[in-house]
């Protein structure tokens, strides 16, 4: 079994979906491909392939630490997508199914990419594949969101390309042999730390700084760190819930992996202090901005976008703390993505039942869509780090790490932002769920049936969020530890 399977399976199914003639049975290809992908990535997690140095692609420790999560996320989302596309039978689904499968293929490629350029090409392709998913509804608002996503995302990805070239040039100046795989880059820069005043070090340092700034801005845009987060509320507000879940858990994770891989190279070059001192403020600023917007946003799907910005901030803080912080961040990648699945899918149900998105127009959803509302409320408590769900454990570990590293300011700001976010989220969620339903929603609520197809997937996410927190499998904790060791600068 080879790591290429994880890329080939979705590609083959994408091609199959493209030529599949029947609209009604085509969505069923999604769970089949997703199921095979889960089996493949779990198999590879248990029997990791030999990582050969110098290859452009490999299922290394970092890929092992996050890719199984993306497989799981995609599989459960694909089950929901089957039910969703049945409800939306008026829209043609060929492009949607095709793009979803290609997105999975490119995410698998980007996360396994060991080469600076290949990572960029895969990340760009994944960005492009999300565009047809965002405007699936075909409304004017959806096209506006797609346009803004294309412009902001495209510029971000262009900046990261420039950053990649700067990093390549820094390697040339450091006397590199032209090998742009991450491990080779890290090895090329390592001698510089021993003698920072040597000519090679002086010649490559300005390029390294430029590379870090551009790459952080570029991949940070993809992650949705403030102030580059502006596309997020528009896109999450307009995209179908299932796409929102995949974006919030999948593409952002890919961007975070890219940041971690670049950080590994910079840390080996002796610029660890710079990466830490930029990631920490970026993370805290994102958390603060998100928390403030959460207090005021009237649209409950846009609210989820700000929650995602907040959690990307948490990941950046973890990466900025370093050491155990990175471990906690990888843990948080899992807990956040799985919990976001609950929220996006149940919010999608509520949105359909209410036929409105604004807090002022939606109320009494506990009456119209009781099961989705229940899951939405429980999911909200889970994402705001209430025990016993996963995010509680990962965020607790992050807090403890901050105190352990004597970074009290970070810990206090972190807690304050979490509290603000909790206030904002609870206020809105209960405004939607409680009260008397509007007349229009009552009529709509009768039309929207909470079938097993739209209820069981978010319930599965809720179960996974509980499981990952209470009984983290040792296989995963080992994978995260191995990933942290991989990312530490070799000495």
């Amino acid at each position, binding site marked *: 079994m080879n790591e290429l399977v994880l890329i080939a399976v979705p590609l083959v199914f994408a091609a199959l979906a493209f030529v599949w003639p029947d609209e009604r049975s085509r969505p069923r290809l999604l769970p089949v491909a997703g199921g095979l992908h889960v089996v493949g990535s779990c198999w590879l997690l248990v029997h990791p392939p030999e990582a050969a140095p110098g290859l452009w692609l490999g299922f290394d420790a970092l890929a092992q630490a996050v890719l199984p999560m993306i497989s799981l996320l995609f599989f459960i989302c694909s089950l929901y997508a089957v039910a969703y596309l049945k409800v939306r039978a008026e829209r043609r689904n060929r492009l949607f199914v095709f793009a979803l499968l290609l997105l999975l293929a490119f995410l698998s490629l980007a996360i396994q990419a060991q080469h600076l*350029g*290949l990572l960029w090409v895969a990340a760009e392709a994944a960005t492009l594949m999300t565009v047809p998913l965002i405007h699936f509804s*075909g409304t*004017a608002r959806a*096209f506006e969101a797609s346009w803004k996503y294309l412009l902001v995302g495209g*510029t971000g990805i262009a900046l990261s390309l420039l950053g990649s070239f700067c990093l390549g040039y820094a390697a040339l100046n450091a006397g590199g042999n*032209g090998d742009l795989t991450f491990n080779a880059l890290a090895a090329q820069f390592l001698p510089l730390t021993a003698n920072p005043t040597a000519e090679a070090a002086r010649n490559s340092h300005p390029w390294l700084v430029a590379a870090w700034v551009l790459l952080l801005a570029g991949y940070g845009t993809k992650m949705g760190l403030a102030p580059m987060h502006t596309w997020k509320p528009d896109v999450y507000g307009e995209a179908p819930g299932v796409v929102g879940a995949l974006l919030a858990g999948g593409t952002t994770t890919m961007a975070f992996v890219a940041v971690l891989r670049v950080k590994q190279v910079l840390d080996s070059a002796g610029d660890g202090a710079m990466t830490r001192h930029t990631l920490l403020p970026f993370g805290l600023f994102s958390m603060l901005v998100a928390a403030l917007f959460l207090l005021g946003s009237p649209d409950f799907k846009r609210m989820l976008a700000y929650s995602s910005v907040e959690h990307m901030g948490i990941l950046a803080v973890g990466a900025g703390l370093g050491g155990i912080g990175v471990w906690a961040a990888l843990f948080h990648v899992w807990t956040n993505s799985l919990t976001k699945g609950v929220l996006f899918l149940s919010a999608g149900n509520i949105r359909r039942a209410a036929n409105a998105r604004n807090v002022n127009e939606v109320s009494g959803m506990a009456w119209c869509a009781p099961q989705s509302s229940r899951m939405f409320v429980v999911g909200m408590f889970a994402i705001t780090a209430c025990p016993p769900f996963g995010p509680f454990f990962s965020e607790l570990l992050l807090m403890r790490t901050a105190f352990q590293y004597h970074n009290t300011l970070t810990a206090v700001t972190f807690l304050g932002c979490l509290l603000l976010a909790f206030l904002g989220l609870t206020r809105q969620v209960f405004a939607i769920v409680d009260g008397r339903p509007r007349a229009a929603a009552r009529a709509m609520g009768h039309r929207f049936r909470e079938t097993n197809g739209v209820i069981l997937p978010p319930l599965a996410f809720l179960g996974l969020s509980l499981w990952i927190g209470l009984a983290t499998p040792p296989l995963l904790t080992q994978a995260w530890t191995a990933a942290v060791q991989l990312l530490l600068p070799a000495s």
Partner: protein
Amino acid sequence: MTNALNLFIGLAIGLNLLALASSRLPSVIRAAALQGMVLGILPLLLERQFQWLVGLVSVGTIAVKGFVIPHLLRRALRAANIDREVRPLIGFVPSLLLGAAATIGAVALGGVLPLQHEHADSLLVPGSFATVVAGFLMLMGRTKAISQVCGYLILENGIYMFGLLLLHLTLLVEAGILLDLTVAVFVIGIIMDRIQKEFDSLDTNKLTALRE
């Protein structure tokens, strides 16, 4: 060799300024297309011996940046029935002045940054930075979707120019970038088409439904 190279890079910088100063959309598209073709010639000048892969990237660049993408944009232009950028956010003269200032700044910056010996005389680094800034100015300062796409293309051209410094390392990557860019413009074209149908205009100032 360096002289010919610098001549072409100078031409590309001139095309930046032309695109920034022009209010007519067809001439902006033409400037971006010409710039793409100029960039396609550069890899051939950089290599002392002819390699088939370099030749392939070169031909691919000229075909995609010089013909395919401009053709898609012109078609969008005809469908939307517009010709001019009216009321840009940053006026034509200010953006021209900013672009010129950025070019001077880029030359100064290129002098400060530590370069490899063989790149010391070439204008690749300043040209690349000047082009990136010009692209950004167009991306932010214009309101018509087509001008913004041209800005994005010019930004991309600047990055491509920078990539030439690493030509022998990243040939395959350049090919991947070209492929991505083609798909990107294809997707952009479709979205523009839909925006045109929904809003009956390609004026991005009308995209205001989504805000806090």
